[in-house]
């Protein structure tokens, strides 16, 4: 549009400038967005278009030695409701009426939960059964978010609760083997990044990347569920019978250190554990490894083994029992205040004479005594792999606070503290030709990529084979040389020792409270099983021989038959014990 005389009209120039300016502005803006702030807007776009999902791995199962599951995982859903989608109360109530029977909540609870806060997610249900979760998802309710999850399930109910432990809401082990073996059981979470549509669903053939979850490995224990069940039932029965405050029973293979059963009370109901409610955390302890106690007369077999191994005594060696011994200002009596005259070393064990133990400790000497205690594993953890294991307490002669009377009292199991697991492991060395084995509870871990087998470990040769054989025979005389001993069983020759300790309290001892115990193994010539029984504070009878030994007598025949251990002699088996 040129004006008169061929000049370009000013309107055209203005228009051209406007267009040019707009173009420059657009290009500049594009450059600002796509070049200068490229990274920022790329992230914004990814945030909008991409979803990230953590793929939870399946937690491994815990199996008994024969492969029966003790703890396994089931698929489940965690369900949440986005509060903003449920603003309309009439609709919210209607939807809540549909959901309430499926999640076992009342309509009012759901509506109140939604209304409690203006924004955020309301937790509708955690670890909901998979089928119920799917049916709720299929309802297509607005604002409903479903996160795949798992739920721990215990086919054997409350069996071995203190041993197995439990997991928390985030599927991390919090106690027991679930915590101790967290790394093996947990697996590795995966990640999934995917392009999503407006409904949040993955776009088929859209961009996807991530790494798959690696499931946790299955852990096979050395525990036998049948023996564990027998032991727990008997423990519960006897604790009730004696009105005791608790107890522990451990069954072990003395030749390998494999723990066949481990039960302790008090405990908790694993199948009904609700961590949202207040629970006494002391119930979660595996007292077989966490709690120490003074072993009492069971320690006499360790003292005897030491003396025999040093060549100081043999089963027929004698000493004179005057009924008491004086060490400095202290007087030590026999447990029953008896006086027995000349006694052999075997009779010392049969009658559980404190004076005899003191005599032995005098022969052994402090240095040797504490050295042998160390060889039997006292004062150090057994390294069984169980969490919370206590070291025990042994004060040796070169430590501050030790007095000569301590040697005397330690020789019959007072003034020294050990866990039940330490004690059974020590006595098992006598049953195993003198070899101290490391107790273990995990037999195998089978992961998706590898498989690890755990073999028995010999810690050390605590005493010689000959000593072990000699002391075992003496322990057999404790059971079979004493009329009507309640640990005697038909069919098998048993070796054992009872223990009765007064309970230590701050500042001294509670003379009205005892711990009754018994440790025994069978068959004598080829031990296949060793058992420790410990009953805490029985009210009707304080003695190990009358409270703990009968438990061994009740359980051992069934366990030995279950393990297919041939009786020592069939005719012996047919006799009454």
């Amino acid at each position, binding site marked *: 549009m040129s004006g008169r005389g061929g000049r370009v009209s000013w309107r055209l120039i203005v228009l051209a400038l406007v267009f040019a300016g707009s173009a420059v502005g657009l290009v500049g803006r594009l450059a600002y967005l796509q070049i200068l702030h490229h990274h920022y807007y790329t992230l914004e776009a990814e945030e909008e278009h991409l979803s990230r999902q953590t793929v939870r791995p*399946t937690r491994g*199962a815990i199996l008994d030695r*024969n492969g*029966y*599951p003790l703890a396994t995982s089931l*698929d489940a859903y965690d369900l949440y409701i986005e509060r903003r989608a449920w603003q309309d109360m009439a609709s919210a109530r209607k939807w809540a009426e549909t959901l309430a029977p499926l999640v076992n909540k009342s309509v009012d609870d759901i509506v109140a939960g939604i209304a409690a806060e203006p924004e955020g997610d309301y937790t509708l249900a955690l670890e909901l059964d998979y*089928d119920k979760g799917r049916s709720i998802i299929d309802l297509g309710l607005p604002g409903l978010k479903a996160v795949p999850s798992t739920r721990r399930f215990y*086919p054997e109910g409350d069996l071995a609760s203190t041993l197995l432990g439990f997991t928390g809401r985030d599927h991390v082990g919090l106690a027991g083997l679930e915590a101790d073996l967290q790394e093996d059981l947990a697996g590795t979470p995966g990640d999934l990044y995917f392009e999503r549509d407006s409904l949040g669903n993955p776009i088929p*053939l859209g961009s996807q990347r991530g790494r798959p979850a690696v499931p946790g490995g299955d852990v096979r224990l050395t525990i036998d569920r049948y023996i564990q069940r027998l032991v727990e039932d008997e423990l519960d029965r006897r604790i009730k019978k004696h009105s005791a405050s608790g107890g522990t029973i451990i069954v072990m293979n003395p030749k390998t250190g494999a723990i066949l059963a481990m039960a302790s009370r008090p405990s908790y109901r694993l199948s009904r554990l609700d961590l949202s409610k207040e629970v006494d955390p002391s119930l979660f302890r595996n007292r077989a490894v966490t709690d120490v106690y003074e072993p009492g007369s069971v320690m006499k077999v360790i003292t005897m083994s030491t003396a025999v191994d040093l060549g100081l005594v043999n089963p027929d060696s004698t000493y004179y029992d005057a009924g008491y011994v004086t060490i400095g200002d202290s007087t030590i009596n026999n447990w029953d205040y008896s006086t027995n005259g000349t006694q052999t070393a075997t009779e010392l064990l049969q009658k559980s004479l404190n004076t005899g133990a003191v005599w032995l400790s005098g022969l052994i000497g402090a240095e040797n005594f504490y050295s042998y205690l160390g060889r039997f594993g006292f004062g150090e953890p057994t390294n069984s792999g169980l969490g919370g294991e206590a070291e025990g307490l042994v004060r040796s002669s070169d430590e501050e606070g030790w007095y000569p009377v301590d040697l005397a009292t330690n020789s019959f199991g007072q003034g020294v503290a050990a866990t039940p697991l330490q004690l059974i492991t020590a006595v098992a060395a006598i049953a195993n030709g003198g070899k101290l084995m490391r107790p273990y509870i995990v037999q195998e871990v089978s992961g998706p990529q590898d498989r690890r087998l755990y073999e028995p470990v010999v810690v050390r040769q605590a005493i010689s084979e000959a000593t072990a054989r000699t002391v075992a025979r003496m322990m057999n005389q404790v059971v079979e040389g004493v009329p009507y001993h309640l640990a005697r069983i038909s069919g098998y020759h048993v070796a054992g020792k009872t223990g009765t300790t007064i309970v230590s309290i701050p500042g001294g001892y509670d003379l009205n409270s005892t711990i009754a115990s018994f440790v025994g193994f069978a068959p004598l010539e080829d031990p296949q099983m060793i058992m420790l029984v410990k009953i805490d504070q029985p009210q009707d009878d304080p003695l190990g021989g009358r409270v703990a030994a009968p438990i061994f007598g009740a359980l051992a025949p069934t366990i030995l038959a279950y393990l297919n251990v041939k009786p020592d002699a069939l005719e012996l088996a047919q006799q009454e014990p």
Partner: protein
Amino acid sequence: MGRAVSAIDRPFARPSYRPWSLRRILVLAFGAVALLGLLQVIQTSDATSTGYTIHRLEQERLDWSAQVHGLEAEVATLTSLERVEREARDRLGMVPAENVLYLEVDVPPPQQQLLPRRFSASEPGAGEPGTSWWQALLKLLPFY
């Protein structure tokens, strides 16, 4: 005078043809583009459908997997000691034995309870499942 006649008769008359018009070319080109576009749409639509099918099948796989886990748990519950004892006492009327007789027998023990394969003891040193003869033959080749 007539037109000169060729000395050689032409036995076959060359048919007359009309060159392709622009319109025809445009119509054909448009048709080809439309067809390609349609093919592309069909392919994309098919891929999308397949994608949703895959997604549905993935979900089905998860459902089956959950069902398998549930069945494994059910087997474990049914073989649990508590249930076995309850059935023995309540349904079969069994009681603990009072007298135990030991007998020597020369018969193998009963077969172990069948467990889901996932839980059954893996034989130490168990190798791969049996290979066929041709796989064994191929393995002899250096490049296999």
